[in-house]
């Protein structure tokens, strides 16, 4: 009995030590692609074409609704509802989440510092964990959620 407690206790202490001593990685920053129109000069007119101002946009990834469905039904519904029109047991309904909000929320677990106009977060909670590995799949998840919008 005492031996079992000692062995289990040792494993428990080792597990807690490894868990809490593992450095927490900072979430990868949202990649921003700057669309820059190169300044070109034409030999014939020799008039410089005015450069367009640099525009910051979230890098887009290919959309695959089937993949979005697969991820949504295997990962997101741990907290959100299977039907994204209604609240889940922990997370709110997702149909109103704009892509840029979902992108930051999934990767970092936090809302973006600057929210889109008119968008109000449904929860103040910090419960959502981050899923940096799903960064490129967020547009697919978003597309799947939107396909179910009522």
């Amino acid at each position, binding site marked *: 009995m005492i031996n079992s407690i000692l062995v289990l206790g040792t494993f428990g202490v080792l*597990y*807690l030590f*490894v*868990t809490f001593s*593992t450095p927490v990685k900072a979430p990868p920053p949202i990649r921003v692609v700057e669309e820059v129109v190169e300044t070109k000069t034409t030999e014939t007119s020799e008039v410089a074409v005015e450069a367009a101002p640099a525009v910051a946009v979230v890098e887009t990834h290919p959309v695959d609704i089937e993949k979005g469905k697969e991820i949504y039904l295997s990962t997101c519904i*741990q907290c959100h*509802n299977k039907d994204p029109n*209604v*609240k*889940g*047991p*922990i997370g709110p309904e997702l149909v109103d989440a704009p892509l840029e909000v979902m992108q930051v929320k999934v990767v970092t677990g936090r809302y973006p510092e600057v929210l889109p106009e008119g968008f109000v977060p449904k*929860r*103040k*909670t*910090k*419960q959502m*964990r981050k899923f940096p590995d799903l960064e490129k799949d967020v547009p697919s998840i978003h597309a799947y959620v939107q396909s179910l919008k009522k």
Partner: protein
Amino acid sequence: MDVALFTQEGLVMALRWIHFFSGIAWIGHLYYFNFVQGAFMAEVDAPVKNQAFMKLVPKALWWFRWGAMGTFLSGVAMLSIEGAGLGADFMKTSYGIFISVGALLGTLMFLNVWLIIWPKQKILIANATTVAGGGAANPEAAKVAPQALLASRTNVMFSIPMLFFMGACRHLSLNIPEDFSPGPVMGVTTLLILALELNAIKGKLGPLTTVKGVIHCGLGLLVVLYGLIEVIV
């Protein structure tokens, strides 16, 4: 290499696994005591009954009470981590409402085990040992047996809605309005549960006397508690 188990989510999962393991050990023995052992003890002769109390019951009670301890401690740890993450929004989620009712039932069950059932059972085991050795029966034993039975039966009744709410907290979504206030629903459900617990301490067995009765009462309590939550939320 990222190891999923060595994260906060992994820690909650490890605690959940301990919660399941010890919970099965605890509630499995609770059902054994109430659904199997009680009927067996009523049928056998006194010497067999004494032998069972001396050799069988202590072993079963060890797993029973330490299972309860493991379930309670892992549950408190899990709830602390998950509750801290949800913060002020905790009671505005289905998770918060269901787990609060389930945890209240589970906590009272845990207290019933350690503060009522186990102390009374120690008296019964000591009495069986004395009688088997040719000593005089302890009159206290006849008094504490029904008290232990009432607490044990109450735990069976509580376990039925408790298991439902434990599962529902992550797998059933209530339609909670934005301006929801948890006071009324938690107040009413808590009062009902505390009244039943008061009966477990000072009251009577009533319909909990039979196995059929306690299962029906557990199902009835589940319907009432869930109905109250749906109506008030």
